[in-house]
């Protein structure tokens, strides 16, 4: 499993630019989410049953088995459409403050891209990103996290990547990321033996050896979420 955290500068182009390379990687991440989800759903079913048993709580809602079957059907459909051998172990991770930052940035910068951008469009983008996440870290107060950079607005994404124990933090905001060839910027969590490598998207591609994004149809993102019963 390879957890990855995306900065706003990568995730918003991935959602809003339907033919770009960042979108193609988002398709790979959606594939990874579907691969992970079936197992996670079974684990959660066990946890929910345990919680119910220990508290005399009442179980309800959507059946885990049905959700797991749907995830598997979507996974199988996507696997057929993706290049042979496309990896399914990339995992998009976010945090509540990072999801809020994606949204804040879209709300502020979106009208420069599209003056007709509506509030409901912001909700749609947030849903697309959330649905592609495999994991969301525990919440944290952005004011109380360590200082990683000179710009506090940029710290939550780094903190999220460290909490997530991410393999990579990918960011095209080059204020805090090396743009040199082979450039990797390392951030460490103070007081803990944890670090994350931050790279630009183009540098990240050098490390994405097991899939050729040219062969990934960026239009497949919708397939990842299409009902298994629809054609």
């Amino acid at each position, binding site marked *: 499993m390879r957890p990855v955290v995306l900065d706003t500068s990568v995730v918003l*182009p991935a959602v809003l630019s339907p033919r770009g390379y960042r979108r193609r990687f988002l398709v790979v991440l959606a594939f990874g989410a579907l691969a992970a*989800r079936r197992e996670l759903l079974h684990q959660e079913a066990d946890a929910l049953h345990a919680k119910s048993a220990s508290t005399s*709580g009442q179980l309800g*809602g959507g059946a*885990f088995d049905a959700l797991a079957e749907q995830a598997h059907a979507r996974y199988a459909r996507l696997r057929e459409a993706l290049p042979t051998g496309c990896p399914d172990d990339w995992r998009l991770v976010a945090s509540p403050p990072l999801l809020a930052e994606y949204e804040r940035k879209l709300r502020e910068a979106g009208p420069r891209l599209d003056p007709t951008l509506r509030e409901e469009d912001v909700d749609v983008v947030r849903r697309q990103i959330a649905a592609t996440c495999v994991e*969301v870290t525990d*919440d944290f107060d952005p004011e109380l996290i360590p200082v990683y950079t000179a710009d506090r607005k940029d710290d939550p994404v780094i903190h999220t990547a460290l909490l997530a124990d991410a393999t990579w933090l990918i960011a095209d905001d080059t204020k805090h990321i090396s743009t040199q060839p082979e450039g990797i910027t390392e951030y460490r969590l103070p007081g803990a033996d944890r670090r994350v490598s931050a790279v630009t998207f183009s540098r990240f591609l050098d490390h994405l050896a097991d899939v050729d994004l040219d062969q990934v149809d960026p239009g497949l993102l*919708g397939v990842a979420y299409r009902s298994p019963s629809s054609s």
Partner: protein
Amino acid sequence: MPAVRSQPKLLSTKQAAELLNVSKRTILNWIESEKIPYVKLPGGDYRVPLAGLLASLSGTYRLDEEIRALDERYATVSDADVQAALEGDD
């Protein structure tokens, strides 16, 4: 410091609402209409599993239709276009 996940995460309705930026009432509606998995605790509070909640998004919304509509609107938008708009925010 905890890593990503050592055990399945069960969210309160408030946490679930904040995660998806919907109202707590929306989460309760999904619970009442059995759209998302949950456990109702004896005190009346609910716990919602994270992966179940995220997996259920494909049922509570038409995500594929939403992405298709966005893609049609932004068919000619490039990564550079989006990044240029974002850079104006710095």
